[in-house]
């Protein structure tokens, strides 16, 4: 399974949740599969999906799911200690780990080599770290939502991208409709 197939499968779960989605093709795929005002698409700033999601989760009570990638987490590795030490039980970090920089031409990441992101997260102090295969993502994500515990999911999948148009929505509109969903 590749990322877009996972997103298609978990779209019904994501639908009712606040979602902060990683820059590039992940956001394009989610936008094409099931655009929702509850989705915050990152159009720039690689690496910050987990930080933005944690910020939203700490500021209010609704559940927040950050959809991140292995490459992006490696870019902002300092995020994992911050998450571990500032527990928000309404926060789920879903790392779609395809072992490659998908948006830039599938160059391999270190997560696809010796580096184990689930072990890194655990070593940083994250308490509920679940590694799963792509096929089980929906089940694991729903269990994390139901647990009311901050959870880091590392979902191992194949690399590859669906072909979708870039997001042309104005960033201020993306931000505004997301904020209205938070307040709703």
């Amino acid at each position: 399974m590749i990322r877009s197939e996972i997103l298609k499968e978990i779209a019904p779960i994501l639908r009712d949740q606040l979602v902060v989605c990683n820059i590039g093709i992940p956001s394009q795929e989610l936008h094409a599969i099931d655009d929702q005002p509850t989705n915050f698409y990152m159009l720039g700033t690689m690496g910050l999906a987990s930080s933005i999601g944690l910020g939203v989760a700490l500021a209010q009570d609704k559940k927040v799911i950050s959809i991140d990638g292995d490459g992006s987490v490696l870019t902002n590795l300092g995020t994992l200690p911050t998450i571990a030490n500032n527990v928000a039980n309404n926060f789920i970090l879903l790392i779609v780990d395809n072992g490659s920089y998908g948006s830039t031409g599938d160059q391999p990441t270190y997560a696809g080599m010796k580096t184990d992101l689930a072990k890194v997260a655990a070593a940083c102090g994250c308490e509920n770290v679940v590694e799963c295969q792509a096929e089980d993502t929906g089940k694991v994500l729903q269990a994390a939502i139901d647990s009311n515990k901050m959870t880091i999911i590392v979902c191992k999948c194949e690399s590859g991208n669906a072909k979708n148009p870039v997001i042309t929505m104005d960033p201020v509109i993306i931000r505004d409709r997301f904020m209205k969903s938070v307040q709703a």
Partner: protein
Amino acid sequence: MSIDKRIVDDFVANGVEFVTTVPCKQLAGVIEELDQRDDVFHIPSNKEDEGMGLCAGAFMGGKRPAIIMQNTAIGVTINTLATLIQYYRMPLPMLISYRGELREPVACQVEMAVHTKALLAQMNIPTYHFHWQKDVEELDNILKYTFMCNKPVAILTDANFWGGYGDQ
């Protein structure tokens, strides 16, 4: 009243409830003051761009954020300022320790100090420079201005403002 308490009081009076910090010796008192207050959530970050991500999230979650950092962080955060904070039009007061200015003992700090105002100007970031202790009187208006216009705003605070750098 101590300058540290005065600064945190102004943040609180302007509804700032979420503050992230990357430390600097000059900012140690403010950070200590933040930790003692129940009315502000203090979350240390490991790098300033990460901190700006946290602040962007907190803002969208309904809390007024602020970041406290050194001016060297301007070199780290240009992309985040342009493509996150400015692009999505979010307010972000940045209380910045302006190292490498008058009374600075560490020569290398001057190397980023000479670029600091030029970079902020290039980014069209409103910038204020506190050099004398009385300059703090402007902080309340700067915070109101920041949340009025939804922009990142820089408050540069140099060693003279903090009463000299350590034992120098």
